[in-house]
């Protein structure tokens, strides 16, 4: 198996004026001096409390404006030192979930572009319908699963072990472009793979970019929603911040006001699903409470999600406060007068 090594420039850290990667962390209280010291330990391959307390929210990848990869470095060192962020049985479970079996690949040969990969979210097949998704082929299953989730599980080497095979499988289908339903896939191909020198022979398309372009084609059919929304960022959006403007672009097109609130944009809070998985229950409760209260105070009607896992994690909490949880593509469908899947 090829050895993929992280492209990490230690000198960039040594001259960093902010150490925002750790200073801005929402889940650890770290001042600049401590951040510098702990980052140096991590670079040296030494133990650091950061390795044990990291909530694996990916945000430090965005906070680092120099394009270094602090989070990837942290996860690699966690694995090297055998520091499991999550209990062993849950790691086993997730390792098994992503095993690419032979079962689900044959039927996709011959699928015509444009093609959208639903990753491991078969439950969303019914939602990929209507004007925005006309003429789209769907692929999904473990052979299209980007594997990036193992960053949460102290198993990043598993990503590098499996990802080349996943990429090879997609390439075998001769797809030139693949629309990524889950931006974790997009971020894998555009951030993680390049960071480790893994070649991606097709062009990943961010779902929101695709949605925006399709909405533009149907602009005259849009009925503005005239509603206030909160947008729940998910961890992998931190790996593709350049695509974040599409959130605002889409909201603007469909008449949704992204209300100013404390925990939005770079200050966004994690949905807390993974924090619960880390078995940090108090933090989980605290993060969700602050996040949802922030939405309530902002007076939003909808909480808009990018990620199905965030939807699962947070939808119950927002619903209890009278806020409607909805996936971004479903909100777009609403603006076109179409009903989201499952709505009556």
């Amino acid at each position: 198996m090829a050895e993929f090594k992280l492209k990490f420039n230690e000198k960039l850290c040594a001259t960093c004026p902010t150490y925002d990667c750790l200073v801005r962390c929402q889940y650890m209280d770290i001042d600049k001096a401590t951040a510098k010291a702990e980052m140096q330990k991590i670079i040296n391959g030494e133990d650091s409390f950061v390795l044990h307390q990291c909530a694996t929210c990916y945000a430090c990848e965005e906070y680092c404006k120099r394009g270094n990869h602090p989070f990837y470095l942290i996860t690699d060192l966690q694995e090297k030192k055998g520091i499991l962020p999550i209990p062993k049985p849950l790691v086993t479970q997730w390792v098994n979930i992503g095993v690419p079996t032979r079962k689900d690949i044959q039927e996709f040969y011959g699928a015509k572009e444009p093609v959208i990969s639903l990753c491991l979210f078969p439950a969303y097949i019914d939602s990929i319908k209507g004007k925005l998704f006309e003429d789209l082929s769907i692929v999904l299953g473990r052979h299209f699963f980007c594997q990036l989730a193992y960053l949460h599980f102290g198993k990043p080497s598993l990503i590098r072990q499996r990802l080349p095979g996943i990429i090879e499988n997609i390439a075998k289908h001769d797809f030139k472009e693949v629309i990524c339903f889950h931006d974790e896939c997009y971020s894998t191909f555009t951030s993680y793979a390049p960071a480790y020198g893994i070649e991606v022979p097709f062009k990943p398309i961010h779902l929101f970019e695709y949605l925006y372009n399709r909405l533009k084609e149907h602009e005259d059919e849009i009925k503005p929603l005239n509603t206030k929304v909160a947008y729940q960022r998910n961890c992998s959006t931190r790996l593709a911040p350049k695509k974040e403007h599409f959130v605002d672009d889409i909201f603007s097109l469909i008449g949704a006001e992204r209300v100013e609130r404390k925990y939005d944009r770079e200050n966004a809070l994690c949905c807390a699903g993974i924090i619960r998985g880390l078995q940090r229950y108090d933090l989980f409760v605290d993060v969700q409470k602050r996040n949802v209260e922030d939405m309530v105070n902002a007076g939003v009607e909808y909480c808009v999600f990018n990620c199905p896992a965030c939807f699962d994690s947070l939808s119950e909490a927002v619903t209890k406060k009278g806020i409607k949880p909805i996936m971004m593509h479903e909100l777009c469908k609403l603006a076109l007068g179409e009903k989201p899947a499952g709505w009556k």
Partner: protein
Amino acid sequence: MISMNKTYKLLAEIVGEQYVSNKKEELYIYSQDPGMMEPHKPDYVVMPKTTQEIQRIVKIANDEKIPIVPVGGSLSLSGLVIPHRGGIALDLKRMDRVLEVNEKSRYVVVEGGVTQGKLKAYLERHHPNLRHSIPDAPPSATVVGNIVIHGQGRLTQQYGFNSDMVTGLEVVLPTGEVCKIGSSSVSPYWFSIAPLPDLAGLFLGWFGTTGVITKLGLRLYPKKEMRDIEMFVVEDPTLVPDVIHRVTHTEMTEDIFIAAQPYPLVFKDIIMIGICITGDSEEEIEFKRRMIWDALRTHIESKEGGFMMLTPDIKRELLEMPTTGTTRFADVMKGGGFEYCGPIIPVEKYPEAYKKLLEFSSKYGITYGSAGRVIGRSHCMMFSFGYPFNRADPDNIERTEKALHDSNVASLDIGGVPWKPEVPAQKMIMERMDKNTLELMKRMKKLLDPNGIMNPGNWEAE
């Protein structure tokens, strides 16, 4: 001895022509259950409507020494209502009335053929603050059938076997007398078996070999507004007894079940401990949840166990009553066959039972699924050695039968007792039973059923 024709006519006089049959196609249905026991047809099927009709049928059977098998939903999987010696299949499904609900004393009185589904629906409609302990059997399973086999349900961790919730019985004895058991024998109320001598034990766990239960009084319990679930996961089976011990110590839980199966892959190599909680408010649920998390902190910190992330869909499925997930797994081989041996074991024996399950699965090249349930505050548990099989594959069936046999032996070897055992397993139990106890069982049976007409083949000591 009267002729078969004559018997048919007598039965028809009692229940009416349309409720008696000796037609092959109907006898075929009553000849089997979904398990692996050899089918055997009855000679007649009768569907009485009243206790008095049953009384008359039983008297004829007793006079003429015709075997009689009381039938509920026929869903035990262990052939407990297969008429091994023919005779009359006494189907109680027409006796399906909910006779009384006492809101304040929290009990219900039902007829012998009331199904789990009917009682659940009835309570939801008329008494939304009350519930009974619903087993994971299909809704067509009967309430009486479940207590006769010492079934378990969603409230078993709190209140014991479903048969521990019995408050009274009306029974037609094999000699035809109608007998009331419990407070209803001296009072209009069906509130309790105690403080009288406990005669219910003459009928519970006997699989209909000592009489026909025509009415049942059963405890009902408060139905909380909300239910939720946590799923604790471990890899090491030796941790399971301690997890159960710690969780039951909190006394905060409704149901605790334990599942292990290799398919789908998300369940491979792990053991899942489902912990259900109920409450009338978010605060109550949250308080209980925190108690449970705190109770398992040691296992979490050692990284040997943790709470699974459950999506709303999975939660909904796990909280279903009855659960349908078990049924779906039961057909994993796509051959329509599923059978299990579910001994009641001391909780600390879980690791041994689990090890044996994997051993038999490997030895016979078949897949497995284990779904256990904690009974009482860790007083014991049901552990199922479950094997899905393909009914169209004789080799697969043979290997499954061997695995089941070995599972029964292993259950006894580790100190457990097979639950709702099929006839061969009953024999295994009786072989190991204390001789005086066995003699007492024989005496009781002979006393109640001198002609041996009731569900013959079951609990028959040599």
